[in-house]
C-alpha cells in the first residue's frame, strides 16, 4: 500500500509539472525579436564617447591624459595641440582601443571636464582587428577652438 501511495504521489507530481509547462505553452513568448525589435538601451553603458556640450557645440577635451593614465587596460591614446593664445590644449587625436576596453568607467570618472561619457551603442562589431580602435574625434568636424572660432 505504501508503494501505491508513492506511485500516486509521483504520478501526481509529474502531472502538476506538465501543467506548469502546459500553461506556459499558451502564454506570449518573451523573446525580443532582434533585429525586428530593438532592446531598450537607455541606461546601458556602452563604448566611451566624447560628449557634445550644447553651449559650445563641441567636446571639451583638453588632452590632459588623465584618462590615459588611469585606464587599467592602457587602451586610450590622446594627442593635443594648444590653440594660439589659449591656455588650454585641445585634443587632436583621441583613439580608444575597444578590443581591450573593459567599460569600467574610470576614465569617465576622472575626466576633469566631464567630456567622456558612456554611449548607448550596443551592437558594435567589426571584421578586422584594426577596426576595433575607435576614433572618438570622428563624429566631430573641424575643431572650432583650433580654427579660432571659439576661445
Amino acid at each position: 500500500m505504501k508503494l501505491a501511495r508513492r506511485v500516486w504521489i509521483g504520478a501526481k507530481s509529474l502531472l502538476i509539472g506538465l501543467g506548469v509547462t502546459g500553461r506556459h505553452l499558451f502564454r506570449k513568448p518573451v523573446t525580443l525579436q532582434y533585429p525586428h525589435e530593438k532592446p531598450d538601451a537607455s541606461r546601458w553603458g556602452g563604448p566611451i564617447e566624447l560628449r557634445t556640450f550644447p553651449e559650445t557645440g563641441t567636446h571639451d577635451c583638453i588632452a590632459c591624459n588623465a584618462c590615459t593614465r588611469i585606464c587599467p587596460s592602457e587602451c586610450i591614446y590622446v594627442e593635443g595641440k594648444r590653440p594660439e593664445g589659449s591656455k588650454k590644449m585641445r585634443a587632436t587625436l583621441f583613439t580608444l582601443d575597444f578590443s581591450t576596453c573593459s567599460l569600467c568607467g574610470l576614465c569617465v570618472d576622472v575626466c576633469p571636464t566631464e567630456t567622456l561619457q558612456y554611449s548607448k551603442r550596443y551592437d558594435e562589431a567589426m571584421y578586422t582587428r584594426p577596426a576595433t580602435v575607435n576614433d572618438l574625434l570622428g563624429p566631430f568636424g573641424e575643431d572650432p577652438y583650433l580654427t579660432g572660432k571659439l576661445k
Partner: protein
Amino acid sequence: MITPTAEPLDTYTLNMGPQHPSTHGVLRLKLTLQGERIMGVEPVIGYSHRAHEKMAENRTYAQFLPNTSRQDYLSGLIYNVAWVEAVEKLAGIAVPERALVARVILSEFNRISSHLLWLGAFLMDLGAATPFLYAFDDREAILFLLESVTGSRLTYGTARFGGLSRDLDADFPRRAREVLARLKARWQEFVDLVEDNVIFRQRTQGVGVFTLDQCRSWGVTGPPLRASGVPYDIRKAEPYGAYARYEFDIPTRPEGDVFARYMVRVAEMQQSVRIIEQALDGLPEGPILTEGSIGIKKRLKPPVGTLYYAVESARGAYGIILVSEGGTEPYRAKFRTPSYANLGLMYDALPGTMVADAVAVLGSLDLVMPEVDR
C-alpha cells in the same frame, strides 16, 4: 549495479575534457572508471588562469576595479563591492548610509541572479531544459534592473571608494519591487516543476552526500556547507556593510545531498528577497559617494598594514588578503575564492558514485572555474 572489484586491470580512464557542457567552465576531470563506477578522480585546473593576483600588484587600487568582477562573473557585483570595502577599511574611508544600503540591495540582486543561473544550468545537466529558460526570464528582469543602475549587465565596475559611481534613481524602488513581485510569483512554479517532481527527487536525493568531516577538511563554505548542517554565513557570522541591520535566516539542511544543496539555494533566494525588501523600505536619502572622488582623481595611498576582508558571495566565503606597503599599488592581494576550496570535495565525493551522478554532483557544487583559477 556493478560491484567494483579490486582488479586494477578492469579500470579505464575517461577524460571529461576542459570543453564539456556540464563542467561549468574549463575544468578537466580525469576519471578512472570501472564499469559505471568512478574509482578515482583527478581535477586539472588552470585553464582559465589570468594572473589576477599578479595584476593587483601592478595596478593602483582603483585600476584593479574591473578585475574584481571578472573573477567570478556571476557574483561580479559582490566581488566588486568586496574589493572596495576592503580598501575602504584599510584606508579608513567613510561611506554614506545610502551607499551602504544600495550596495546591499545590488549585492542581493546579484546573488539571486547567480542562483537563478545555477538553477537553470543544473537542471539542464539533469536533462530538463525548460527551467533554464524560466530562470533566465527572471534573471533578465534582474539584469535589466541592474543595468539601469550600473550600466552593465554582467561585469560591474560600479563601486567606488566611498560609495557607488551612479546613484539609484527615484524610480528604482518601484521597479525593484516589481522585479521582487515577479520573483515571488515564480517560487511556486519551481516547486511544482522541479522540487516536487519525482524524477528530480530520484536523481538528487541521497546522491553525492558530503559529510561534515569532508567539508571541514576541504574548507568548504557556502551552500554546500549549509546543506551539510552548518549554519555558517559570513553575513551573520561577521556582518559587513549594512547587513547587521536586516533580519534574515540562514537556510540549513542536515542531509548534505544534492537535493539539500538545491533546497538551500532556493531558500537563499527567498531570503535575499526578504533582505532587499527591508533595505528598500529603509533606503536613506543622501549622497551616494563621499566627497572628493577618492582614489580616482588622486591615487589612493592606504597606510601600511595587512587586512583580511571576507564577504559571502553566491558560492561561499570570498576573502581578500590585502597587504599595503603605503604605495599606490597593493604590495600583495590574495583572493580566497570559495570555488577553489569547494572543488576539493570532488576528490572525496566522486569516487564510489556512478558516472551519471557525477554530473549531478558537479552541478550541485556550483563551481565557477574562472574563480578557481583567477
